[in-house]
């Protein structure tokens, strides 16, 4: 068995793998506002241009990564898996997280050395309300598939109240949501 077989390249060559890594590295630095914002471009490139996966595979990948535990960025692992198995997962993940992580580490160190700089304090203070606004927007966008059903909106509202009032682990709230959804939203 060649190394390519072990990595499960699905007939792709090393050049394709490097291309995948490079494209995702570029997206990494463009992903302002979280990795999900790059999904439209990934879909355009992987499905449309390269023909490496189908639309259905792409959409399912995003849905599963949302439903499974862990950061939503793992939808990128599913993309890599469909394209080139284990090697594809590595190329895609290292690509999408490498450049942005290096930048984050560097900025973090700079911020700690200059924590008292006036402009840095103005920067974080001025942007904090935007962070909260973006969180609320994310919550709103996530309700998009079910917003037209009152059962779903009630579930959203109940979750907000329970989270604010109790220390119940979100894991159990999600589990309860799955049960309610299976019964009321099927």
């Amino acid at each position, binding site marked *: 068995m060649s190394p390519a077989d072990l990595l499960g390249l699905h007939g792709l060559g090393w050049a394709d793998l490097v291309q995948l890594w490079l494209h995702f590295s570029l997206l990494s630095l463009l992903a302002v506002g979280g990795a999900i914002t790059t999904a439209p471009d990934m879909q355009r490139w992987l499905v449309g241009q390269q023909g490496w996966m189908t639309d259905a595979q792409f959409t399912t990948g995003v849905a599963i990564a949302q439903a499974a535990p862990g950061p939503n960025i793992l939808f990128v692992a599913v993309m890599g898996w469909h394209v080139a198995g284990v090697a594809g997962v590595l190329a895609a993940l290292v690509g999408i997280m490498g450049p942005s992580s290096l930048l984050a580490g560097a900025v973090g160190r700079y911020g700690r050395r200059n924590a008292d700089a006036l402009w840095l304090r103005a920067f974080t203070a001025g942007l904090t309300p935007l962070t909260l606004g973006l*969180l609320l927007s994310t919550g*709103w966008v996530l309700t998009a598939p079910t917003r037209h059903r009152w059962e779903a909106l009630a579930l959203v509202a109940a979750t907000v109240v329970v989270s604010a009032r109790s220390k119940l682990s979100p894991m159990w709230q*999600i589990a309860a949501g799955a049960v309610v959804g299976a019964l009321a939203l099927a």
Partner: protein
Amino acid sequence: MSEPRSPSDTPAPGPGPAAPDGPPPADSAALRQPASCTELFRVFNRLAMQGFGGVLPIAHRELVERERWLSPAQFVELLTVGQVLPGPNIINLSVIFGDRCFGWRGALAASAGLLALPMLIVLLLTSAYQQFADHPMVAGALRGMGAVAAGLVIATAVKLARTLKGNPLGLRWSALLVAATVLMVGGLRWPMVWVVLGLGAVGMAVAWRRLRGGQA
């Protein structure tokens, strides 16, 4: 590479608060430190494994409420930086926090904790999903989980809204900027880059003016 973290290297066993070395900063009374890269990996893995539909609400619960590694204000600051920079917010947050504790090894430990096990699960689920995708109860369960995920994110924002009280912007400017962001990004679906650049510039200018005024 690694930076000094605390005056003392005493590990803090168990969930109890570590003995403070010297007077703690006003904002962070009784904050703890992770004892090792292993503990970083374990806690980030634990929070990732609970993070259905996004890790952020759990990150707040685990890092701020349970482990007390960060004060609410520090958490929202880290999150702001992680959000403004490109890349996945939660990965950026783990890289910066891990690097602050144990240098690049800490950054690797925290982000690996976040990703390793969930990645295996996602790939296993991908293989299994096709067989059950058409079942209406499975689809309904996924919808219910999505609705709860939305509620969890909103609840996190509500909890973090308290940190706005200490913000030099003042409550009125803060509320205005929150509302404008929700309207433009969530409501009108404008491209986030322009909203963040535009409203961010306003927020930073106001904060700059007030901070300088306070110093003079």
